[in-house]
């Protein structure tokens, strides 16, 4: 796989786009472990899965329908969480049916200020408990009226009755990831993995390479003006090598399913 080494193993804190956003998670231990729920693949199985993924033209990266832009606010955790939610929506309902989400509607519930940052485990908790409001765009306005919110803007207020709409976009099944092997297994199973490292949070979408040279592509939230091409996008993605993945895997969770909204009988 070709990748742009300009975006390999970035020290986020030294990037001009960086703003502190991911606090050390205190509560990931309360979630069940991916490794306990899903059979962990052997090294050889991971290599085989990656080879097949390359031959197929990609993995969960092909389900990405949007590159987020946190626009200088410390909301990376909420952006990465919302990205994982949208990827699983894409799998369950189809890419055309994905409802793009407002990361700010999640961030406001897990942070204390525009640049306070947030804990990855709180992001997962809030996605499970209350969900995420749809993004304020013309498509969502047509569907949800004023029950939408912009992706940025700490001072934005929740619309009245927002909870009834946000709960349609909850995460249902997710697990903390405890090891690199578990993380690679999740990505081979095309379950997106939200991680935090160096004060920033990103969404891992696809492994590539083999053995010690394995790497992972992630969707960042620094707009389309940043990053390399992948999937349907000409930019927006970065790359972590396995040693960096190892650091990130201590602040990580994988998402398996999201809510299936239905009209009441």
């Amino acid at each position: 796989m070709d990748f742009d080494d300009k975006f390999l193993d970035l020290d986020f804190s030294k990037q001009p786009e960086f703003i502190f956003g991911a606090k050390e998670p205190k509560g990931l231990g309360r979630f069940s472990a991916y490794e306990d729920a899903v059979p962990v693949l052997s090294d050889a199985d991971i290599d085989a899965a990656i080879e097949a993924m390359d031959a197929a033209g990609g993995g969960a990266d092909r389900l990405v329908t949007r590159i987020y832009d946190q626009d200088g606010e410390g909301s990376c955790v909420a952006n990465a969480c919302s990205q994982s939610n949208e990827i699983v929506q894409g799998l369950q309902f189809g890419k055309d049916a994905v409802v793009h989400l407002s990361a700010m509607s999640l961030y406001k519930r897990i942070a204390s200020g525009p640049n306070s940052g947030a804990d990855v485990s709180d992001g997962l908790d809030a996605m499970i408990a209350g969900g995420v409001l749809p993004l304020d765009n013309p498509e969502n306005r047509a569907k949800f009226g004023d029950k939408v919110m912009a992706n940025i803007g700490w001072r934005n207020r929740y619309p009245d009755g927002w909870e009834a709409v946000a709960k349609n976009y909850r995460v249902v099944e997710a697990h903390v990831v405890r090891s690199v092997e578990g993380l690679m297994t999740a990505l081979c199973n095309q379950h997106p993995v939200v991680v935090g490292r160096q004060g920033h949070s990103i969404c891992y979408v696809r492994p590539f390479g083999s053995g010690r040279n394995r790497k992972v592509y992630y969707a960042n939230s620094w707009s389309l003006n940043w990053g390399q091409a992948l999937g349907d996008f000409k930019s927006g993605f970065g790359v972590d090598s396995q040693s960096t993945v190892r650091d990130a895997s201590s602040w990580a969770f994988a998402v398996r399913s999201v809510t299936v909204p239905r009209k009441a009988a």
Partner: protein
Amino acid sequence: MKKLLSNALLVIALLSLAVNHGWIGGGGIFPSPSGKHFVILHESEQDTPALTAEFTAIRTGDNAKFFKGKGYALEILDDDPQDQDGNPVPLVAKLNAEGVIPPSIFSLDTSDGVLSKAPLPAGVPAIMDFVKQHGG
């Protein structure tokens, strides 16, 4: 003539309202398909790289274009999903009761009646064959 025009405008307005609110067309808050549609059930704890690669292949490229072109909705759901209130999804409970062990595939009519059911065929071409065969 004026009355005809006014009636036509009323119909267009009502249709637009219905589409925008997801009452028709499968959109809106509730992505419940409104026409003939397909459901694949799987237990995501038992997902394998090969199975999920098939799902992604169905969701992208020419396969996705096929579904869109035919107007077929497809949902790929965990076999024990939750609705927005944390309750089981009645359609999935009904499909589980059909006795086909997941991964499985169902074609459904406009009222969610089961038209056909099968264990999920092996490989994307076989899955698409099922869809083409049972899509009408």
